[in-house]
């Protein structure tokens, strides 16, 4: 077209745009993964005495990422001894100096956040959007927050002069590998303890890279040690000469640890499973309650101990609410965790996928109605579609047992009393959610819900300043906040 400005460029009316997002992959070469990792003991990496290694795979592709050492009993003993030797120096350091080590580590984690987020996604399957925007910022925040407590313990507990316990053995799960490390390690070190950490079998890599960061930060050798391995390694650590065990994981294993430690005098804190009740009243801000419900059960593929896995919706709005919920499920993006636009990533392991599939099959057989969106799933890797069961009764297994996957069970209620009764009718008591515009009702419900955490008009909110932990079989002890420090301290009068 050679004419000037006034030649009309006619475009015939075109149909609405069917807009699909192109893949937008975060660069996985941001992080360099070694072929093989040793155990981190005494400030350096060592070959395991056991001579055995496990392979960590990427659950989105089933491809191997790296070999990590499988610590045997002698390796665990070596790590505990190293932590024991480092304890007198570490606990006697002026607290302000301990604080500065932790501030340094917090800053280094911040600086390398992107690379650690990529590694977390590769190793565990969670979407990069979450590891980048939720996990890593919280990791840095936990170290920053707890660094500030190190030299202020005299103000934390009126009337007490707290002292550290000694060596803490810490066993953490695979759902938030680096964040669970931060929840355990930051308060333990800040309060003057030394640590031997056992990361989960399927997600050891970020803990090992974190160990490298502590070495770069100049953390004295032996203060922080990592023994990778599976269940046997964890059991060896529980039975070793530590002064305290902190465990986050399944209720079943938590009970086993409690039995093992009976009569030993060792301190124990447990953060176990949950079957969170997510309660939506008719006067809730509905569209935001939908987002909250989605976040409550599909965030991190539902691999969340405090997941809102039971939706209790007030019967008068159930139909509208479920209608909106189903529409919302249809636009959830399930797929490559490294794609920045993915909402729901891979299931962490083959065994977890089997467990989820079995329980969902049970749900079908129990007569609940199942809804799943029609999204395509990748061929390789471990995947499960976001799932909603309606017509669920309190006595169904899918209403009682923790599925630990992207599966929501929906029940209805008529009155607040009924909601409270159903919500509390479980051996668990970790978290609950309440959606209503009425402030007084939020507080009335919060008073009556037997849950360690109550989220009102929000869900899955975490902060190092906010204590987290459960009632009943969801465990005991709190992590975060002033209250969370107690797990790592002793004092006369406590």
């Amino acid at each position, binding site marked *: *077209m050679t004419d000037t400005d006034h030649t009309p460029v006619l*475009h015939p009316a075109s149909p*609405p745009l069917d*807009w699909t997002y192109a893949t*937008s992959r975060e660069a996985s070469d941001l992080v360099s993964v070694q072929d093989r990792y040793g155990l981190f003991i005494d400030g350096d990496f060592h070959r395991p005495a056991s001579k055995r290694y496990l392979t960590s795979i990427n659950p989105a592709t089933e491809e191997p990422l790296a070999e990590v050492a499988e610590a045997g009993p002698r390796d665990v003993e070596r790590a505990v001894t190293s932590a024991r030797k480092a304890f007198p120096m570490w606990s006697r350091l002026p607290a302000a100096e301990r604080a500065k080590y932790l501030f340094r580590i917090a800053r280094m984690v911040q600086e390398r956040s992107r690379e650690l987020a990529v590694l977390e996604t590769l190793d565990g399957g969670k979407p990069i*959007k979450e590891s980048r925007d939720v996990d890593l910022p919280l990791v840095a925040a936990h170290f920053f927050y707890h660094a500030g407590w190190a030299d202020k313990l005299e103000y934390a507990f009126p009337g007490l002069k707290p002292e550290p316990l000694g060596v803490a053995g810490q066993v953490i799960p695979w759902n938030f590998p680096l964040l669970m490390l931060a929840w355990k390690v930051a308060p333990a070190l800040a309060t003057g303890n030394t640590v031997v950490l056992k990361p989960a079998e399927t997600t050891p890599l970020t803990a090992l890279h974190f160990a490298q960061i502590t070495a770069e930060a100049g953390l004295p050798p032996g203060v922080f040690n990592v023994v990778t391995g599976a269940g046997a390694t964890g059991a060896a650590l529980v039975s070793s000469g530590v002064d305290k065990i902190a465990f986050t994981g399944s209720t079943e294993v938590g009970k086993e640890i409690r039995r093992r430690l009976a009569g030993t005098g060792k301190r124990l804190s447990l953060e176990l499973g949950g079957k969170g009740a997510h309660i939506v009243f008719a006067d809730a801000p509905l*569209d935001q309650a939908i987002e909250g419900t989605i976040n409550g059960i599909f965030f991190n593929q539902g691999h969340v101990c405090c997941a809102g896995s039971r939706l209790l919706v007030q019967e008068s709005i159930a139909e509208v609410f479920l209608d909106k919920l189903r529409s919302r499920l249809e636009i959830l993006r399930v797929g490559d965790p490294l794609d920045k*636009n993915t909402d729901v990533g891979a299931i962490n392991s083959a065994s977890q996928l089997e467990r989820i599939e079995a329980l969902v099959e049970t749900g079908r057989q129990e007569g609940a109605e199942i809804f799943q969106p029609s999204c395509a799933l990748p061929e390789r890797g471990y995947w499960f579609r976001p799932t909603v069961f309606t017509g669920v009764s309190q006595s169904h297994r899918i209403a009682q047992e923790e599925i630990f996957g992207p599966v929501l069970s929906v029940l209805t209620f008529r009155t607040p009393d009924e909601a409270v009764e159903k919500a509390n009718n479980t051996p668990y008591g970790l978290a609950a959610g309440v959606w209503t515009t009425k402030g007084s009702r939020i507080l009335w419900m919060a008073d009556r819900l037997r849950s360690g955490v109550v989220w009102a*008009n929000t869900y899955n909110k975490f902060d190092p300043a906010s204590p987290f932990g459960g009632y009943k079989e969801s465990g005991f002890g709190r992590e975060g906040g002033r209250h969370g420090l107690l797990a790592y301290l002793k004092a006369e009068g406590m």
Partner: protein
Amino acid sequence: MPVPAVANLLPERPSRSAVQAYVGGVPSVDEVAVIERVASLSTRSIKKDSKMAALELAVRMCDLTTLEGKDTPGKVRQLSAKGIRPDPADPSVPSVAAICVYPNMVPVARAALGNSGVKVASVATYFPSGQAPLDIKLDETRRVVELGADEVDMVIDRGAFLAGHYLEVYEEIRAVKEACAPAHLKVILETGELGTLDDVRKASMLAMAAGADFIKTSTGKINPAATLPVTLVMLEAIRDYRRLSGVQVGMKPAGGIKTAKDSIRYLVVLNETLGRDWMSPDWFRFGASSLLNDILMQIRWLKTGRYQSPDYFTKD
């Protein structure tokens, strides 16, 4: 989701209490959650062909706007030419949706746009304040349509709304809708004056029940103008309105949308709230002026792989 046959949510001449009850029944909005949802949608990474598709759609959705006391026929002619052919160096860039002007400039725009397919949109109802007697506002509405406007952008009476006089607000919109036929009606809520997202949602539902073809955020004359949270709330209201009445209503954020990146964020929010049915200029517009050149620069960058300079794009 099945769409019901068209249903009126309010009767032909509703009583004051019917309108009060209708507005009172609109669900409340949690602001913190809205801001979080918007933040999450803003992390969508739109690349390559999906980015180009979005940018071209965004151009086609622009209502190129000039609403200044100092507007002259020359200015409006230049803007119209720009709207027809935004990038002289690249004829494949489509025309915009409309040129938006003050009533006095409607004939100029009409003549300049000819049968290019670009529409003439005019503000009316004593824009931007709306503070004039109703009969004057209705006269103005009828005049701009006579002068050639295809679309009329009206303002609601914010004073009446904030005073809780919902019946008055409703009746005024209805009257303007009747007066502007056959032009289509956009109703400006002036969300920056409404104070809460609850009120934004209420005003949206009220305007739609009164017959708005489009609901629009702002006049662009005060701050804040359009924002993503306000837009999300309005889109959710539109979604509910369709569910309840079967009627599809369009949406237009206006003012404060300066960059191509912003416009893509708005399209993401639109796409994931209302979906494909709304992804066209028939149902979504951007009220903007400087936005267009930033989009053109981004299109040129995608086509050439070079970061661009504003010198190569016309300022009209």
